[in-house]
């Protein structure tokens, strides 16, 4: 259960990032988030859950409880892990419809646009897409 809307959480993250004067501080914060992200149990680190990119590996899994999607993920690279941690904070605990309609503007607003590049197949964009796929799949399954 997430008692804030996706937009509200996004706004909070943008506010938090506005406190940083430098890129160094932003990255230190993201690295810190990455280190704090709860590790994914080994049983979930399967080929099926793998979002394999050119440089680092991401494992992403999702559960569906009471109409809300909950994500868990991990990566072997800590900055990626920090970025995922923010995505989970924004999207987890929302309905499939809310997730599928999320604009995720905060990524641009905190200056992480470069991580959205199409060429980074495990960049933020690919992760957001994968998270939305989960939402769509849960919704489709429910409709059956």
């Amino acid at each position, binding site marked *: 259960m997430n008692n804030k809307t996706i937009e509200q959480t996004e706004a909070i993250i943008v506010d938090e990032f506005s406190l940083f004067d430098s890129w160094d501080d932003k990255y230190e914060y993201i*690295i810190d988030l990455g280190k704090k992200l709860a590790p994914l149990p080994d049983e979930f680190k399967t080929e099926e859950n793998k979002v394999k990119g050119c*440089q680092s590996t991401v494992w992403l899994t999702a559960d569906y409880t009471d109409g809300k999607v909950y994500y868990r993920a991990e990566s*072997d*690279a*800590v*900055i990626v892990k920090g970025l995922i941690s923010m995505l989970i904070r924004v999207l987890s605990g929302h309905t499939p419809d809310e997730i599928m309609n999320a604009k995720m503007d905060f990524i641009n607003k905190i200056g992480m646009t470069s991580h959205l590049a199409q060429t980074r197949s495990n960049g933020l964009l690919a992760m957001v897409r994968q998270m939305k796929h989960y939402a769509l799949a849960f919704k489709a399954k429910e409709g059956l």
Partner: protein
Amino acid sequence: MKTATLNTTHTFDIEAIRHDFPILNREVKGHRLVYFDNAATSQKPQEVIDALVYYYSFLNANVHRGIHSLAEEATAAFEATRDAVKDFINAAAREEIIYTKGTTESINLVAYTWARQNLQEGDELIVSGMEHHSNTVPWQIVCEEKKARLKVIPVNDNGELLLEEYKKLLNERTKLVAVNHVSNAMGTVNPVKAIIQMAHEQGALVLIDGAQSAMHLDIDVQEMDCDFFAFSSHKMLGPTGMGILYGKRALLEAMPVFNGGGEMIKEVTFEKTTYNELPYKFEAGTPNIADAIALKPAIEYINKTGKANIRQQEDMLLAHATERLREIDGLKIIGDNDHKVSVVSFVIDGVHPQDVGILLDNKGIAVRTGHHCAEPLMSRFCIPGTIRASFALYNTIEEVDLMMEALNKAVRILR
């Protein structure tokens, strides 16, 4: 424009050299660019940039067919590069210089023409365990098609080829050996002369992937006695999209054509087409005229600077970087040997290469992280990838120290 000049003591004026490369003045993330990704592609001196602009501003015409002045001038400039390349690698004749898109296309050309024509079921090809994917995949494709076998020269812990093992792989079924002159992932210089001689004793041909060596080492294809030599313009100060395949004339003459189209024909009827002479038989269609023309000033820049001087600068940077990297606790150099050129590749305990790459980029420092298109080599060392710094003639000791400062900080934050 000030240009780099040599003095008699064989040192060069690094400031003048840097001045010739305009991109070195730009900033990245608020810092002066430190470009250490030269093994991926080198930066371009003003002469090369000017040649491209000049071509499109004053010379643009299709080559070889027009009777008008522009076409003649463009053709002369286009063909002048072929002579410059011939001298650059000391080929016996200009007809042995084939223009391609780059090293990858050069290798594919040989795979799709020579190998397809000459390989039979049960034949064997040898590559090494430190090849770029572009010198492995084309051979895998043709081996699968022809039911031939691909064998691999193993690599030792120091990132060197095991010549004793190579010797055991050679036999009367070996038709071709394809190895790189210098490893893109580690910088190891391979003993190509010995490799070629051993292959020839078994009657096998040898293709040398010179993508990483052409900029740094003296290349003499006749002395080396390789049968094919492939390299790219963009890794040696020239434009992208332009490469060279050198082949011994008799081999090229006997090889079937690669692409069909204009330029490569002598006579066309619907019953039969006869093909053009070398080198045009392999150059179908309107070629990459501008980039071919602009390769010549790149070669001239290397020649006037002198490869010995270039190596001296790069060796100094490599030695300094290697020494300073060893200060970092838990750092391991991949390819730790004493015959390397321009490249240092490493991993650090508890730190992912991608994280280091992002944090260095944040300081304006461009390094390469990942598997360097050499996944089998990464598997050999049981690592997902490395951090690779690769140096060029315009890099400085101060830049290496900047990288070290950023690297030390990155490791501190990431661990």
